[in-house]
Structure formats: structure tokens, C-alpha cells
């Protein structure tokens, strides 16, 4: 039996990778993928706790997160395509029209 702490450490590492990627990457697609990584890191801790405590609510949460993430991916990718069409770049530092 793998102890709970292993799952949690892995979950933390995944989440940290996501944060790091979100902060240092410039490409919108990579940033988008980093967000997915953070979500999945959290999902991992949810299911780990659910298994550990034998409680189903954790798994239900994971389904909800996956649904939202799927919807987000659809909307997000659409936005990315729209941005690319107008700006011809996916570099976030150059998508700064709203910044003074």
C-alpha cells in the first residue's frame, strides 16, 4: 500500500510545475497546459484523500473539475485561435493592448 504522503508530494510537485510553467512560459498554449497541470495536481490529491478516507465526495469533486476543465479547454482554445488570428502571435507579453 502506497502511503498517502507519496500521493500528496506528487500532487504538490505537479502543482508546483504548473505554477512554474505558468509564471515563466510566454506561449499561451504552454500557459494553458500549465493550468491543466495544476488542476490535475489538485485532482490527484482529491482522489488520494478520497481513497484514504473511503469517502466518495472527493471523487465527485474530481469529476466536476474535469468537466469544468474540459469546458475551459474548449473556450480557451477558441480564444487562443481568435488571438492568433488577430495578433499573429501567441506571446503573452505582446498581447498587452489593455496595458497602459
Amino acid at each position, binding site marked *: 500500500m502506497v502511503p498517502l504522503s507519496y500521493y500528496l508530494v506528487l500532487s504538490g510537485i505537479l502543482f508546483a510545475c504548473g505554477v512554474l510553467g505558468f509564471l515563466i512560459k510566454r506561449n499561451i498554449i504552454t500557459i494553458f497546459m500549465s493550468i491543466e497541470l495544476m488542476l490535475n495536481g489538485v485532482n490527484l490529491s482529491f482522489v488520494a484523500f478520497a481513497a484514504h478516507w473511503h469517502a466518495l465526495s472527493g471523487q465527485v469533486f474530481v469529476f466536476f473539475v474535469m468537466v469544468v476543465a474540459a469546458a475551459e479547454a474548449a473556450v480557451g482554445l477558441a480564444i487562443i485561435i481568435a488571438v492568433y488570428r488577430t495578433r499573429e502571435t501567441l506571446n*503573452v507579453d505582446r498581447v*498587452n493592448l489593455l496595458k*497602459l
Partner: protein
Amino acid sequence: MTPNPYLWLVPLLPLAGAAINGFFGRRSSRKAITAVALVFCGLAFLLAVVIAARFSSASAPYYFNLAHWLRSGSFQVDFSFYLDQLSLVMLLVVTGVGFLIHIYSVGYMWDDDGYYRFMSYMNLFMFFMLTLVLAKNYLVMFIGWEGVGLASYLLIGYWFTKDSAASAGKKAFIVNRIGDFGFLIALFLMIKHFGSLDFTHVFAAVRPLSPETAGTGLLTAIGLLLMVGAAGKSAQIPLYVWLPDAMEGPTPVSALIHAATMVTAGVYMVARSSVIFERAPTAMMAVAIIGTLTALFAATIGIAQTDIKKVLAYSTISQLGYMFMACGVGAFSAGIFHLMTHAFFKGLLFLAAGSVIHGIGGEQDMRKMGGLRLYMPWTFATMGIATLAIAGIPPFAGFWSKDEILWKAFNASWVYWLIGVITAFITSFYMFRLMYMTFGGEYRGAVVQQAHGHDGHDAHGHGQGHGHGEPHESPWVMLGPLVILAVLSVVGGFVGYGNRFEHFLAPVFQGAMEVAQETSHEAVDHTLEYLLMGVSISVAVLGWLLAYLLYSRHPQLPARIAAKLDGLYQAVAHKYYIDELYDALFVKPLIEGSTTILWHDIDQGVIDAAVNDSADAARHVSDNVRHMQSGNLRSYAGWVAAGGAVVIAYMIWMGVR
């Protein structure tokens, strides 16, 4: 109590005149201005005469409460007026002499551009002076006291475009502030210990106290502080320096404010506070010593002055010294008597000097006068009478009052008497010197230059419009007051004949009498009195003779004597360098200190710096902090992540503990 409900009108009439002329004078004709100024001032005089006629000693003092002013617990001050024998005398002197000088001013100032302003200030002065002498409590008196200071400032600096006049006004104001400071502290002490500033309350509280023979105490402190105030207003050592400079004002101002009325306010105040002073022997002695020293000191300076008004100014200081000497030895009524006669003859001297200055086109240097008796006989005659009066030649007014003071001073101590007699000799000398230099000999001025008159020495610029070729007699509007004052200078002294004046004032100085009685009852020896009288008359005549010898017989002698006594002469001519001394001791350090310490170090270095530095600090900090608000989404995300990391680290650390 014979009610005289119009008492309060006396000061308010001139105030109305001042207001009308001050607000509407600029657009009025000169005739209208004259009418307003003279009518309101004359009405005040008439009213004063009516009040005097209805005055009866039996019912004095009379009070009139005009309005409430301050109420604070048990302490209260009202706008209230007070009429007793002392204020009645002052009332008549101020309104009478003041009215005459107003008439004179019409002639003297007619050609001046600021005629309405001048008349308005003069009326304003009358208002404050009458408030001062009619006040029933020290605070209303203080209003008048400050008000005459203000009027004096305005009138000294009347020709304010002239730098010397403007700074003379400032000097008078600032030196007077020093005195007022003492006066104020005395008032605070009274409030603290007697709970009132009302004359009747304060004096009632003081009367039961026994004299502070030990030398120190509350009454001594109050007395000394009041004397500081009096020394400022009445130009006594060490605060006399402003009065000679005040001669920068127009001559009627010098006559009214700096000879006849305002400068005597200090004497009046000391006499009014006689109840306090007589119970504070140390303060009395200080008054007597200051008065005696000032009398002698100022008289010696008067010898070497060449400006006709400066001579009279030092003479005024010296005569005021006599008055304080009288008050200091407990002879308050003699002091007030001299105040009255002095108002007549010194007012006359100044007006006559003004007539001379007017007649020769603004020249004030006596070395450029001479021989004027032929050109202006009326001025000569009246000024001669005034000179005889101030020198103490009987039967002129000054003789009676000065002799009274010297007699009382002798009873106190022969030292006061001796200095007084020496001063009388010097007074007689410099006054006759002035007469001989001005009216005797030949005219030494710029003679008969028809075209451009007075070759630029028209210092005051009031002579425009006169083609000053020859000296000329002044118009009758100016000579009239001179003649009236001359009559008063002749007969004014008889008021004091047979001690009538003293008896009249006796109720006011009742307390003082009790103390004075002890010293004077053994000295009713009339032979001694006549002997002393003889001495003072003979020194006056000697002074005259000396002046005659030096300035009429041998006019070249004074210069030779001056050359021989070079150091002494220079010291006297430069007024003993007192102005320079004060400059080095007080003015310079004050200006230096204010500039380097107060201005540069404290104001700029601390106060301004604190404000500016905190502003700078705020700007620097916000300049750094504003970079957080970059608009860069990922940097915000970074901050959020960092914050989350900190929270997590904190929770872990707390959990571990």
C-alpha cells in the same frame, strides 16, 4: 452722583469724525474734511467743558457703564468710563489742546496730498486718548494705550514714502511694545491676585495692604511692571529712544502726540495707580530715580542738537522725567500739574517750531535759521512766552509746576532736588539757545531765491505751492492756536496758586497723601521754600544769560568750546551713542539670531525640512512601490503564488511547532 449721561460721547465723537473722514475723505473737498474733523473734535471739547462745568467734587467719582464686554466666572470687564478729578483734568487738557492743534493742522497740512488721511488719524488719536483717560478699568485703559500707540505709529510714518519716517514709526511701535509687555504682565498679576481690573475693585483690594517695606512683593512687582509700561509710552530711560526719531512725523503730530498728550499717558497711568505705588516704596524709588536721571540725561543731549524739533523732543523727554520724579516722591498732583502746564507750553513750542519750519519752507536745521523775529513776529512772541514758561521764569506756567515738583523733591531727598535744579539750568540754557539761534541775529538760510525757492531742502514736501523766497509769517489759522496756547502758558500756572490744584486732586490721591503727610508736615518752613524758589529762578536766569553770551554776544564761542571739549561734544551731539549701543546690544543680535537661528536653522532647517522631507520620502517610497502595479498579468500571478507559498510555509511552520 450727578449723572452726566453724555460722558461716553466724548471719546466717540472723534471716532465718528475719524470714520467719516477715513471712509469718505478721499472724495470729499478739503473744506468738508476740515469741517468734519474740527466739528467732531470741537464738539468733544465743548462737551468736556460742559461736563467740567457740571462737575462737582462732592459727587466724584462718577461712573458710566456703556456695555458689557468680558464675562468669565467672577471676572468681568465692561466698557465703562470713569470721571474723577484726575480724569477731568486730563479730559480738558486732551480735548482743549487737541482741538487747538486740530485747528493749527488745517493751516499746516492744507497743501498735503493726504490731508483727509491726516485729519482722520488725528481724530482717531483723540478717540483713543480719551478712551485711555476716561477708562474705568485697566483693560479699557489698555485699549486706549495701544490705540494711541497705533495712531502715533500711523502719524509718525505719515510721510511713509520717506524711509526715515517709515522706520521711525516702526521704531516707536516696537519700543512701545517692550513697555506694553510690562504693562500686560502687571495686568495679569492683578487678575491673578485681585480677580479684577476695575480701578475701584483693585484699589479697594490694595488699600488694606500695608506698604511693602521689605522691598519685594506683589505690589512692588506690579508697580515696577507698570513703570516699564510707562517708560515705554512716556519715553523714559531706557526706552526713550523712539521719541526723538518720532519727530519725523508732521509737526502738529509732534505737538499733539509727542509733547502734549500721548507721552504723558505714562504719567497719568502712574498717578492713577498711586494707591499701588505708595504701598511699594521700591517701585516708587525706581520711578523717582528713572525720572530724575531721564530729566538730566535728556537735557544734556538737548544742548548739542541742531535740529529744532530734536531739541524740543529731548526737552519733552526731560520734562517727562520731571513728572515721573514728582510721582516717584509721592507728589502725584504736582506731576499732573506739570503735565498740564507742559501740555500748554510744549504744545505751543512745537506749534511755533512748526510755524517756523512752515515759514522757511521745511528747513529744520537751526544753523540755517536766525533773524526770524523780523519775519514772523507773532511766532517769535508766542514761542518766547513758551520758552520763558519752560525755563521756569515767574510768573509763567512752567515756573509754578516745576517749582512745586522741586519743592516736593527736596522734601524727599536733596539729591533729587539738586539734579532737578541742574536740569532746570540746562533746560533754560538750551531753550534760550534755540530762541537765539532761530530768532536772533541775521537770517542764515538760503536767502531770496525767487525762482526755485528752497533749494531742495524741503524735507517734508509740504511746502509745494509756496514760492519760498523769504521767510514769511504763518496764516492766522495757525497763529490763533499759538496765541491761545501762549495765553494759557502765561496764566495756566495760577491754577496751582496756593495749592488749589493739589487740593482739587486730593481726593484722587487720598491714599498717597497719607504716606506723604509723614514726610512733609515737618517741612512747612516757608523761608526754605522761598529760598529754593529763589535758587530755581536764579538758575533759570543764569541759563538764559549763558545762552545770551554764547549765542548772541559771542556767536563764535560755542564752536570754540565744542572744539576744546571735542570728545565730550561729539558724545553729546551723537546722543551718547545710545542708539548705536542699542543697535549693537539688541537690534543686531536679534536680527542675526532671527536670520541664522530662527529663519535658516529652525524655519528652513526644521519646519520646512520636516514638511519637505516627509513629502520626498512619500514620493520615493511610492515611486518604488508603484512598480508592483506593472499591468503584467504574470507578475500578478507571481505575487499570488508567492503569497500562497508564504501562507503554506506559515501553516507548515505552525504545524511543526
